């Protein structure tokens, strides 16, 4: 089958030769695809902005021995322009595509990851929610799809109910995957306020109305946990997390 077609979201690009690019995409049916877009860096390229990061396109590929070649592309979601017009959105979108690249592989379909990423980029481009909350919600849900769902409603060790957070807060342990009751909490466990635990739960469930009600201090605590949780499971640092807030 020398020609095939799939919908894909562009994760990143690398320059190749004088005017080509290697485009890394997450496709709807085939997982990650790396393909060459010939002449795409020329100003008169037929691809134009269709193969820029964060764009969703219907793409036709020609199978090659090592890398496939992109022969046609039609835009399905032009999210790149709106995202690049706001630096906070751009920083968040980078985190999302870098995470998606780490969580998926070539030749292994990841349709749920694809749909989640496209939905998150669309929401980010439209400015539906604060970029930081969109990022943290995406990361928690992407990790859940990958099999690392955190738990913020009960003790991840004994399954017992969490006591109402006292002055010191509730223990939240990255390595254990969520909240831990006082009896099970390892000594020195970091503790978070009840508001932070509640925010993490709403971000995981996508309850935006409740998530947006939390203040910047609570969001910053949640962000710290989500960053650490993501990098713990991916087993590598996410470079994009250093930028934006």
């Amino acid at each position: 089958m020398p020609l095939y077609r799939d919908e894909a979201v562009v994760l990143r690009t690398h320059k190749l030769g004088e005017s080509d690019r290697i485009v890394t995409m997450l496709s709807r049916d085939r997982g990650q695809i790396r393909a060459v877009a010939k002449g795409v860096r020329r100003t008169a390229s037929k691809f134009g902005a269709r193969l820029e990061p964060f764009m969703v396109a219907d793409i036709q590929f020609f199978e090659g021995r090592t890398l496939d070649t992109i022969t046609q592309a039609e835009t399905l979601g032009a999210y790149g322009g709106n995202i690049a017009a706001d630096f906070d959105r751009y920083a968040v979108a980078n985190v999302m595509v870098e995470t998606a690249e780490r969580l998926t592989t070539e030749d292994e379909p990841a349709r749920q990851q694809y749909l989640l990423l496209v939905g998150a980029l669309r929401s980010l481009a439209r400015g539906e929610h604060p970029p930081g909350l969109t990022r943290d919600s995406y990361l928690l849900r992407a990790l859940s799809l990958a099999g690392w769902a955190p738990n913020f409603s009960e003790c991840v060790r004994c399954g017992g109910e969490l006591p109402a957070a006292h002055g010191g807060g509730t223990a939240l342990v990255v390595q254990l995957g969520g909240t831990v009751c006082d009896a099970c909490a390892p000594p020195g466990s970091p503790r978070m306020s009840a508001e932070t635990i509640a925010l993490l739960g709403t971000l995981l469930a996508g309850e935006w109305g409740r998530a947006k009600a939390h203040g910047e201090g609570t969001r910053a605590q949640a962000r710290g946990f989500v960053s650490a949780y993501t990098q713990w499971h991916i087993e590598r640092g996410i470079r994009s997390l250093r930028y934006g807030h």
Partner: protein
Amino acid sequence: MYEGIIQDLIDEFGRLPGIGPKSAQRITFHIVQSQSADVTRLAELLATVRERVRFCTQCGNVSEQELCSICRDARRDAGLICVVEEPKDVVAIERTRQFRGLYHVLGGAISPIDGVGPDDLNITQLMRRLADTEVREVILATDPNLEGEATATYLTRLLKTLEVPVSRLASGLPVGGDLEFADEITLGRAFEGRLTVS
């Protein structure tokens, strides 16, 4: 696989960007078969280029002196600064013969996924330069791709604090193309930036 120095040279050429093993082999055998004087000249240039070429202390462009030839030229308009990503962009704009101001070379574009943030570019130098000199306009001429646009967005936000007029190069339909093949973003930009002709 060749023996000794031939293979070493092929390996060295193969490390250069855009040079694959076949090209490296072709260049190596071209050198082996070339006149001795040509090869000596090339070897001397390679040896001296790293020593002599440095970055202009004012604009970040490549130069053999402390200031590049454009920054040294008193006839250039110092009130206009065009911000570009790479030295090759300076050459591209100079070819138009339309711009008579000065440049500022950032040294790349912001790309968090590649680990390139604002601190890795010559942005602090730009801000210092704008604070020290009287500039009428800053023209953002970063690449019209996503990283370039995001870098321009970042700079626009930053330059607001200095109250310097900032403009961005127009983008839209390329000359010589067909409208039907334009992508949505390019065509949208062309509409946004359309000109009144009568």
